[in-house]
């Protein structure tokens, strides 16, 4: 666990990346021949070219927009439903079976349905993002609420708090760490699902660009787009971890990292 904890953005971690790229370069240049597996240096030059194109940035913007919009909707819905499930035994009893059945469904399986419903569009993309991204938030919110000790319920009862104050001031804050873990898993998932949706049926964004470059037989561009996704993921996760640090003083993100991995 500890090596995972320290690996995110350290000197040795970054050195590892360069080492990997270096071996890849050697392998492709001198040892094996793969027509369509370019060397990292070739990918880098293609990427520099892409950086100058307005289209490249528009594609990033599209994917980011779809992922963030889908994530936001999934987050609100997930927190709301998770609270409902965690607080209402009746609601939980009636929905627990449905949830267990629905949770393992791969979101990609909804892509054809989304295509039928919405055609090649952003709506279809959002459907493919929201459905799988909902679960981590929902399950972690519910778990956070269910794990609140019974004694805390008695404390808020004896303090005669209103139901709103109980939920807003006590239950949500005490489930916060768990909710944030869910939000983080969902965020990564949203970006992945956005790319997947774009590959299947939303002619826009990075996912679509990867397919397009593949069909145009430009593997260097294709890889440049693939690495773009990785960079976006690192950047967004970094941003979120900063926000999380702000929200919970005294709780370093590394702890959250561990939790994410345990999930």
């Amino acid at each position, binding site marked *: 666990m500890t090596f995972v904890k320290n690996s995110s953005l350290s000197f040795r971690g970054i050195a590892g990346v360069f080492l990997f790229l270096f071996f890849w370069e050697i392998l492709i240049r001198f040892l094996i021949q793969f027509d369509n597996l370019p060397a990292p240096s070739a990918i880098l030059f293609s990427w520099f070219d892409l950086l100058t194109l307005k289209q490249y940035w528009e594609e990033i913007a599209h994917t980011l927009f779809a992922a963030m919009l889908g994530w936001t909707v999934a987050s609100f819905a997930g927190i709301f439903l998770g609270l409902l499930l965690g607080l209402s035994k009746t609601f939980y009893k009636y929905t627990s079976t449905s949830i267990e059945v629905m949770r393992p469904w791969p979101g990609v399986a909804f892509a054809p349905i989304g295509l039928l419903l919405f055609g090649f569009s952003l709506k279809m993309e959002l459907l493919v993002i929201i459905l799988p991204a909902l679960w981590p938030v929902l399950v972690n919110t519910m778990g956070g609420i269910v794990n609140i*000790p019974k*004694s*805390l319920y*008695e*404390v808020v*009862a*004896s*303090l*005669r*708090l*209103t139901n709103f*104050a109980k939920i807003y*001031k*006590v239950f949500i*804050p*005490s489930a*916060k760490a768990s909710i944030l873990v869910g939000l983080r898993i969902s965020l990564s998932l949203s970006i992945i699902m956005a790319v997947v949706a774009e590959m299947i049926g939303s002619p826009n964004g990075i996912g679509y660009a990867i397919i397009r470059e593949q069909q145009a037989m430009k593997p260097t561009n294709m890889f440049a787009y693939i690495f773009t996704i990785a960079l976006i993921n690192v950047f967004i996760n970094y941003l979120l971890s900063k926000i999380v640090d702000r929200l*919970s003083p005294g709780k370093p993100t590394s702890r959250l990292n561990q939790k994410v991995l345990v999930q």
Partner: protein
Amino acid sequence: MKFIYQIENLFLELPIGNPEEKRSILKNIHLTIEAGKIYTIVGASGCGKTSLLRVMGGLTQKSSGKVLYQNKEVSSPPEGVAFVFQDYANALLPWRTVEKNISLPIEDSLSALECSARVKEAIAQVHLTGRENDYPWQLSGGMQQRLQIARALATKPNVLLMDEPFAALDAMTKASMQDELLKLRDQTNISIVFITHDIEEAIYIGDQVSIMRGPPGEIFEAIDISLSPNRDQLTTRGLPEFLQYRKLIHESIKGH
């Protein structure tokens, strides 16, 4: 109205495991609480002391009998009654500062000005001045319990229900908190129901000591303590009357 609390023929049964089987927890309890007095309840652990307090605080539903607070049946935590839990660590909100923990029950109903005045007063009452912006985990155990008491006091209760509040504290802190409680009673005319298994504590702070035996818990005897109201840890505890009470209560708990 003479009595703040009136408890008559109180019985409590709770299910054990399967719902058909029930265990008798409290049996035929009679207790009356007057304003400005401290009532201590002593008894061996597991005899039902906490259950009685929980019924009074509206946290557990009685099976039969009468539990009246200001002539009204208690079914949920009544207004004007504050509960101090034994387990202070779980009763405080770790993400809120001392100040914010205290303001939790009053911040929605009072204006910001009134609220901060109340918080300030409560902090002064329990001697936590200077620690307003600390988090509970930055406080010692005794301070955390004082914080919980401050939160209870901020609601300006008529009655304080305290469930072995000083059980986890060291002897020094315990002694000073007992004195604070006596001072509080003198200053505010508050009634306190105080559960303890420490006989000396029960006599020292009590105006009346109720002796519980169980299970099922029964109030076996209630002894009025007629020590001078000006009590002092050293002299009061050395008085012959004090030692007599101690012997009496000790024998009463043991049952011979």
